[in-house]
């Protein structure tokens, strides 16, 4: 691509007016947003407004029919998902989707066993996630399906970290977890942030999103309708009521 593109001044991910469809139903109607390097960005909105689809479009799982997704200034929306993963887009889906019959270690190896990763680098990556999530080290030989919901969320996030991603797309991490586990999710996001990994967080949990995110986008009917710095927003605000119905 053009050498004039200065990666350092480009946002990490730029989504430009993407439209996606499931069969004939039109889900995203021109979504545009940006995530900076190392930035934690929240994406709020009611159920069914297209938040998860936006993440899937960025990950290449539901390729946009119109519009573009750029990673550090390079268009990527024509690439298959496994190439996007190798370019640094980690995806942690709503239902976590750990490989249930694979052990914790094997789950991590799905992202770790790539070309060009030295043994020492692999060990360093494993040591790092095991230091952040000691419970995964304890359960390394246990099947992923036997972990609790919170542990599965840790595993799904640690697994995405094995790709040494530039951004992790985190889809409703608190979904299906007990309320007291929300602290753990907060910790996972902090870990990612401290590792300079950008996070695009889709959540229904407004307090968590406002606390963890730096900027918030609000979506409605397949479009981004509003954007605000998280610091300017509070749980009871009218804008939150308008877009979340709470």
């Amino acid at each position, binding site marked *: 691509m053009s050498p004039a593109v200065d990666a350092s001044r480009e946002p990490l991910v730029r989504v430009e007016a993407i439209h996606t469809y499931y069969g004939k139903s039109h889900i995203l109607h021109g979504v545009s947003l940006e995530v900076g390097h190392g930035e934690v960005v929240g994406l709020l909105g009611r159920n069914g407004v297209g938040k998860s689809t936006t993440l899937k479009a960025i*990950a290449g*799982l539901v390729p946009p029919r119109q519009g573009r997704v750029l990673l550090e200034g390079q268009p990527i929306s024509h690439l*298959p998902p*496994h190439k996007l*993963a190798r370019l640094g887009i980690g995806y942690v889906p709503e239902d976590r989707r750990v490989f249930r*019959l694979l052990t914790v270690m094997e789950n991590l190896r*799905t*992202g770790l066993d790539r070309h060009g990763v030295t043994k020492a680098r692999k060990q360093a990556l494993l040591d790092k996630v095991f230091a952040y999530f000691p419970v995964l080290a304890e359960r390394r030989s246990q099947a992923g399906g036997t972990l609790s919901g919170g542990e599965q969320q840790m595993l799904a996030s640690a697994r995405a970290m094995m790709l040494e991603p530039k951004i992790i797309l985190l889809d409703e991490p608190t979904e299906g977890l007990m309320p007291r586990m929300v602290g753990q999710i907060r910790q996972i996001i902090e870990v990612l942030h401290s590792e300079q990994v950008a996070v695009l967080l889709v959540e229904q949990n407004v307090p968590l999103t406002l606390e963890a995110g730096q900027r918030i986008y609000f979506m409605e009917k397949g479009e981004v309708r509003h954007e605000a710095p998280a610091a300017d927003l509070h749980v009871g605000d009218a804008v939150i009521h308008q877009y979340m119905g709470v």
Partner: protein
Amino acid sequence: MDLGHLIQSIPFDQVLVQTVNGIVTGMILALVASGLTLIFGIMDVVNFAHGELFMLGAYVGVVTLAATGNFWLALVSATLVITLLGALIHVVVLRPLLGRDPLTTILATFGLSLVLQNYALWQFGPVARQIAEPFGGHFQLFYLDYPWYRLLIAGLSGAIIGGLWLFLKYGSYGIWIRATTQDRVMAQAMGIPVPLVLTSVFAIGAGMAAASGVLFGPLVGVNHAMGLDWVLKAFIVVVVGGMGSLGGSIAASIFISLLEAYAALVVSPAQAVIVSFVVLILTLLFRPTGLFVPTPK
């Protein structure tokens, strides 16, 4: 004569001979079926052309053996050639059907099996070809001169299946295959090149079928229709063992082959085949997930 007398009238040494026969046939069947079950497990494709890959493997063996006189070279070249053919078939026939109704892949592989079978008939003619055993030694098994070769095939099949298991269990690509089997979308999101994995698995399954074709060639002769018997049995085994379960298929292969071997003591071998169908029907009726897999919760 009642059943008790019937069983008592069978000499014990015959039972032992049939046990050995059952295990030998079972191991070959396991080699055919494990390729089939691997393919089914990862892509939900019922490969009706599997028997033809077995048959073509045997023919490549025949041709190589005629040219070089070396059985082991024939085994290796048949495996390699059919592995490549498997990859080609996957890319040309099956990859374009990805995500379509499973019926389309059934029809496509069934059509392919007819094409391959008729190609073999056209190319090699209707007369069965022979593959000579690589060595002719025998040992005394009661009243029989039992060929060492048969034990060797059982051992080799076991070794190939064991190698596959180790590869799936510990190899990086093995982990990719198992991850893709469990969740194809998530595997892609983890950077696993899923289209390549699917093609490789189909190719590996094809190569295993070809290897079994060459190994079994000396016992039955090679003809264009030989795949049919085997694929039918392999399907029974895959269903009885639990669709997609490698361990289940191996257990079911030996179980069914032993049952048939014992039944052949009482009835004619042609009638003994009925036993496998009875087992298939009972399995589908009472435990449709398979006999050799844990009860699903």
